[in-house]
């Protein structure tokens, strides 16, 4: 994709609305002076678009923070809830992401997959003993890993529709058919946006390489890769990609199990699905 097209995409994404349920809840919670802080934070951190816009605002070089802020909770601690709430309200004022897009991309299914990948990614991070900061970063990385897809659905629906259809019909990886029809796949688009928004390097890397895990060592990306496959295996939505990738050796070594053994070991993840659904259904 030529650079001018990338620039155009970046401008368009600025005006991208968030998911209907979170918009509705933010409007409701911010008009109640007694609304609890944790309820507000929960809504924001479960919406990829609100999350990304907050991280973008906080990490902008205008503020020049010495260290990147990688989660909504840390943003709240850093600058205070009211500023975060008002950024979210600004996003809500842009309207809601339509359930029907020209690409026929199922955005509810996408959100279910993103949220369950986020929660499982965090769970995996906890199991391998990462720090609490890294665990919360894993949630964010899982939530944002497929961000490029919803951008395609919104702004390149015709090409994305063809990519989705071919992936489905021929059981090909969606990131491969995206390359064919759009010239860039969702992880590359996600990387361009994440870099533009000055997100943290591990987060950018996890988004950029969640289908390409031989790239380099990144524990965040490994958690997202594994969680992505587990979410699809458990049928918690697939974000438009019908293929489940086996755990390559590095992932098996990292988590000490292959995909099916890991799914067995994790046991019943239904509660993760139910909680995710509570942020989706209007």
């Amino acid at each position: 994709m030529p650079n001018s097209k990338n620039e155009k995409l970046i401008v368009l994404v600025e005006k991208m609305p968030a998911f209907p349920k979170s918009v509705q809840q933010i409007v409701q919670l911010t008009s109640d002076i007694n609304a609890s802080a944790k309820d507000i934070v929960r809504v924001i951190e479960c919406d990829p678009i609100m999350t990304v816009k907050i991280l973008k605002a906080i990490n902008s070089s205008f503020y020049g923070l010495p260290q990147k802020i990688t989660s909504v909770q840390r943003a709240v601690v850093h600058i205070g809830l009211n500023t975060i709430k008002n950024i979210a309200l600004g996003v809500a004022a842009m309207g809601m992401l339509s359930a029907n897009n020209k690409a026929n991309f199922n955005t509810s299914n996408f959100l279910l997959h993103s949220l369950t990948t986020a929660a499982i990614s965090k769970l995996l991070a906890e199991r391998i003993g990462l720090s609490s900061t890294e665990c919360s970063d894993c949630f964010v990385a899982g939530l944002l890993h497929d961000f490029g897809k919803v951008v395609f659905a919104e702004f390149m629906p015709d090409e994305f529709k063809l990519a989705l259809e071919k992936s489905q019909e021929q059981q090909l990886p969606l990131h491969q058919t995206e390359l064919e029809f759009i010239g860039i796949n969702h992880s590359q688009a996600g990387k361009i946006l994440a870099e533009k928004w000055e997100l943290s390097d591990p987060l950018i890397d996890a988004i950029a390489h969640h289908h390409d895990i031989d790239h380099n060592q990144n524990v965040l990306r490994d958690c997202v890769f594994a969680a992505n496959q587990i979410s699809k295996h458990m049928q918690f939505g697939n974000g438009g990609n019908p293929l489940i990738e086996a755990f390559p050796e590095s992932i098996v070594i990292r988590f000490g199990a292959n995909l099916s053994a890991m799914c067995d070991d994790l046991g019943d993840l239904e509660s993760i699905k139910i909680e995710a659904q509570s942020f989706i259904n209007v």
Partner: protein
Amino acid sequence: MKIKFWGVRGSIPTPGPNTVKYGGNTTCIEIRTNDNDLIILDAGTGIHALAQTLLKEMPIQAHIFITHTHWDHIQGLPFFIPIFIPNNQIKIYGGIDPVTNETINRALSVQLQYSFFPIREAQLNARIEYATVKPGEPVKVGSATITPIVLSHPVLNFGYRIDCDGQSVFFTGDYEPQLNIYDPEDDEYTEFQSFVDAKWDEVVLAMKDVDALIVDSSYTNEEYASKQGWGHGTYDSGIKLATAAKAKKLFFTHHEPTRSDASLEAIYQNLLQNNPATGFELLLAQEGVDISL
């Protein structure tokens, strides 16, 4: 370095017999370096009285650092007389608001609109400059170095540390140390607490070993119980900060608007009794008193 408070009141000016001693103007602090460079922290109504003293020094160079853009910290700007007089140079520093993406020039331009003020921004005769400051990036004014840090308040708020001629002052602007928003039984509690602790350490480091720490201490603990999340500190949160930072003097400011001189002094006596061995001096910010560090 010399310090003088010109406004010590929070939220709204409170003139009248009950505030005569400590003062009823909203926030404004004058700082003078040993070379007499003029640094002003915030432009509440106190800046008007400060301006009167500057008239004999014209032309002046003033560096005004705004902690945040709530009215009580900017409402004196249009009444800072030097802005109307040619040859004065006034530089106003502040952050970019992450919600509106507006820079600090808006603090003055919003007020100088037809509906709110008779004089237009274009009619100001002084040379006025605006500068965007970033957290952790020091700014030089003469021999002074001013370093901002983000401190939690309902709008973007900078605390400023001023290091100058071997001495240092830190002013919090309006600041409520972040509390854990989760309950101990919530899964998120521990993680959030680690973020709170990390930020606390960052804040303490920013004010480490200062000669004077000036804190927003709007509330008593009893008052704070019903005012959590309003964005202000307590006397005790100020003492906790000064203790951790090993400050040498602690000034309580942003006096709550209904607080009379008498009740302020009663609180102060209690604080002295309850904190007999802090290792630093506790002081109430009082308008018009010269403080040499």
